[in-house]
């Protein structure tokens, strides 16, 4: 038995050694959250262009992955980290895990996305967390789709909304920030008290809210309003079974009703492949990668030159005025906001 476990450990070490064997093309390791995806031809294009090999390292959800990157600072697990969003941005910058990279590709990216003036975290994509609604529910009852956050406390919309817990879900946090952006730090808790009065349902994650409680996407849901993404409706067409020509859901993108999540990439301090890492980041900001992203990750490109799939063009909804909360304020107050929310809504 000792022998068996010794063999086991030796094999383990061997596999580990092989995984990083220096022979062959240089390997660029990219750490991501587990929603990351890309298409085969696009990745091959980069590998052919540089002669390098890409290795992706999905490390759990966005919070877990960032934790992993921070904790491994002394012995970085990867060369590049992708997937820190604007709610976690200040945290990543304070922890100082990224090297400065003033990419030439940034020239093409609108200034509104460039939240880090020190160019350590570079914007890659964005997505809007917006309410989605069940079209047939509102059509059949002749009820107008809510156009302001205030509408949701109206008795006519009683018991219609399901949201995610901001302590456990990233769209849940985004919706809490939407209400803070609109009502301010002094007003948002009163608003949530009113929402609670109006029978808002809170669940812990997006999967449960969207797949199980939302009536627009599943056969068992009962709530026609859900906190999801502006990009969700096109996916009800792209991934429909049986095929449909129109989504059964819509996204509400009225002013101050959405929160914009911007995702960033950065070169991890301690990398030994700096120039390859730079090339990968330039590639992520190029049209090739930016056009690939929407259908893989359900997010929008930050590069305005990237063209979108026709289904996207037809059914996507992008708010012109999402709610605004400063990244620094989020980093400072995130915990207390969530805890205050928990006391008001769940206790």
């Amino acid at each position, binding site marked *: 038995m000792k022998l068996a476990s010794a063999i086991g450990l030796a094999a383990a070490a061997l596999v580990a050694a092989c995984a990083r064997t220096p022979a062959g093309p240089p390997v660029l390791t990219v750490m991501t959250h587990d929603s990351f995806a890309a298409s085969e031809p696009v990745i091959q294009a980069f590998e052919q262009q540089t002669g390098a090999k890409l290795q992706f390292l999905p490390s759990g959800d966005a919070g877990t992955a960032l934790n992993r990157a921070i904790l491994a600072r002394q012995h970085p697990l990867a060369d590049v980290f992708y997937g820190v969003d604007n709610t976690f941005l200040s945290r990543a910058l304070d922890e100082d895990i990224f090297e400065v990279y003033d990419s030439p590709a940034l020239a093409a990216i609108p200034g509104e996305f460039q939240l880090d003036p020190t160019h350590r975290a570079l914007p890659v994509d964005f997505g809007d967390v917006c309410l989605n609604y069940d079209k047939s529910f509102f059509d059949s009852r002749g009820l107008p789709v809510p156009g302001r956050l205030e509408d949701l406390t109206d008795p006519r919309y009683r018991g219609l909304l399901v949201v995610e817990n901001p302590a456990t879900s990233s769209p849940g946090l985004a919706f809490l920030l939407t209400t803070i952006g609109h009502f301010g730090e002094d007003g948002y808790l009163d608003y949530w008290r009113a929402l609670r009065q109006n029978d808002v349902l809170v669940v812990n994650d997006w999967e449960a809210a969207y797949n199980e409680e939302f009536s627009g996407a*599943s056969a068992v849901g009962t709530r026609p309003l859900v906190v999801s993404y502006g990009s969700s409706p096109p996916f009800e067409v792209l991934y429909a079974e049986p095929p449909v020509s129109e989504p059964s859901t819509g996204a509400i993108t009225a002013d101050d009703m959405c929160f914009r999540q911007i995702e960033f990439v950065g070169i991890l301090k301690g990398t030994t492949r700096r120039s390859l890492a730079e090339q990968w980041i330039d590639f992520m900001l190029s049209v090739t990668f930016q056009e690939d992203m929407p259908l893989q990750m359900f997010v929008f490109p930050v590069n305005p030159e990237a063209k979108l799939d026709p289904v996207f063009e037809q059914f996507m909804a992008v708010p012109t005025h999402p709610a605004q909360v400063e990244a620094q304020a989020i980093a400072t107050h*995130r915990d207390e906001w969530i805890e205050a929310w928990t006391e008001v809504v769940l206790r």
Partner: protein
Amino acid sequence: MTGTPPDDVDVATRRPSLGAGLLWLAPLGFLAIFFFYPLAAILVASFARSLAGPLAPWADLFARPSFPRVVGFTLAQALASTALTLMLGLPAAYLVGRHTFRGRSLLLALTAVPFVMPTVVVAAAFTALLGPRGWVNVALMEMLHLEAPPIAFVHTLTAILVAHVFYNTTIVVRLVGDFWSHLDPRQTEAAQVLGASRAHAWRTVTLPLLLPAIAAASALVFLFDFTSFGVILLLGGPRFSTLEVEIYTQTVGLLNLPIAATLALIQLACTLALSGVYTALARRVNRPLTLQPAHLAQQPLAGARQRWLAAAVVVALSVFLLAPLGALALRSVTRLDPERGQTSLPAPAITLAYYRALGENPRQSIFHAAPATAIGVSLTYAAITVVLSLALGMPAAWMLARRPDDFLSRLVDPLLLLPLGTSAVTLGLGFTLALAAPPLDLRTSPVLIPLAHTLVAFPFVVRSLLPPLRSLQPRLRQAASVLGAAPARVFRTIELPLIARALLLASAFSFTISLGEFGATTILARPEFPTLPVAIYRYLSRPGALNYGQALAMSTILMIVCAAAMLALEKLRFGEQGEF
């Protein structure tokens, strides 16, 4: 002082030998490197991040009004869940332990399936059955002409308890049922012949003999419920919180590592206290037995009383365990009605579209996991986990059984359950911190996954092997020793055949633990090697009916893989019976 040693003292325990002590080397070395070292690393690093010193998070935590509530609820729900699991599990253990009947192997295999199912899909199955627009509620509303759904299930305490019973009944059925099948039925019969009533014989003879197995099963079930995460999060909803949920929220949502580490230490302390009580008890309740081959103990069902009991057990298992699985499988072949928002039973449109789509990769995603790949990866990890955890668990169990009074045995015994009391996110981050740097640099190695699975499986192996090993009549081994057999030979010729079935039981546990593990896997996963649960989750996290259907189809495949593996293992068991 001459003559033979008294019957109840084991010769081996009185003859300390360095060689045997070396058996601890592998299991303790493994735990030290892959459990205590990463755990210490993450705890130390977390407390170091507390700007106001390592005591500040404790003060902060104890000042929170929610903290005592969370600890109280964690303990209370675990106790209640364990009691309920025993209520369903013990009659079922009696049925499969004491009787032979048609479909027994299948029933036993099916009870193992819930154990491997990811909580996200189980929550979906329960919602399909018992949600506000689930099949049961809709049927009741139509039958009784009700306006509102009569059953509120999702997001209640009941849902948490029922889900825990769903998941963990198999532990009781297998551990206790297996031990029961080897108890000599003549002991109970003798008591009855001597005039004891059925109940009296059960209470004074059978129950005390079964206690070691019941205690082991209860401890494992309790720890699983105590550290429950997905069930609380998804079926309990945001109003319920356990220590494990708090550790996750503080780590991932709030990035508050000092508080998370404090909570992790409290959870570990509770686990240690429980396993201390349990190991002390387990030593006391063990007594030498003459274990019998199962075919002597197992009889066909006879008489109305036994048949009724069997029927009741099968019905109860079907309601609690099989109905949710059935709902899941049914949903994976049911086309969602495009006319949504209606309040009626889903139109029975059967489709295999979700299964067909699993093999396709229309967007050429680099991370597409074909079902065959995911099955292969899952089975490979599971096989490695079985080999590793048996290789480590067997020497540990042998030492605990044969040298219970050694200093090391007394010290280590309660520590062996600790991996079950450690949250996956804590351990995953600990691996990142400790195993990513010299001297042991496994950084991105795929081998981290079976190592993490082995940590969870190892306590199960030890607890499965201990009751039969401890019950072995010492005289058998003494006789062999006296006749000149070396310890290794005694083990091979006397002990190994007697614990052969327990080894298969341990393999079944290790296998299913690895097959279903998600928490640590998702943190350490390599996209080239997706497991079935990881693939399921990938589909589930995307909008669109097709993605949802594919997640359910992949879950059904996971069920089939698990049931098939358990049936294959049962066949193996059958072959071993002759040796017993």
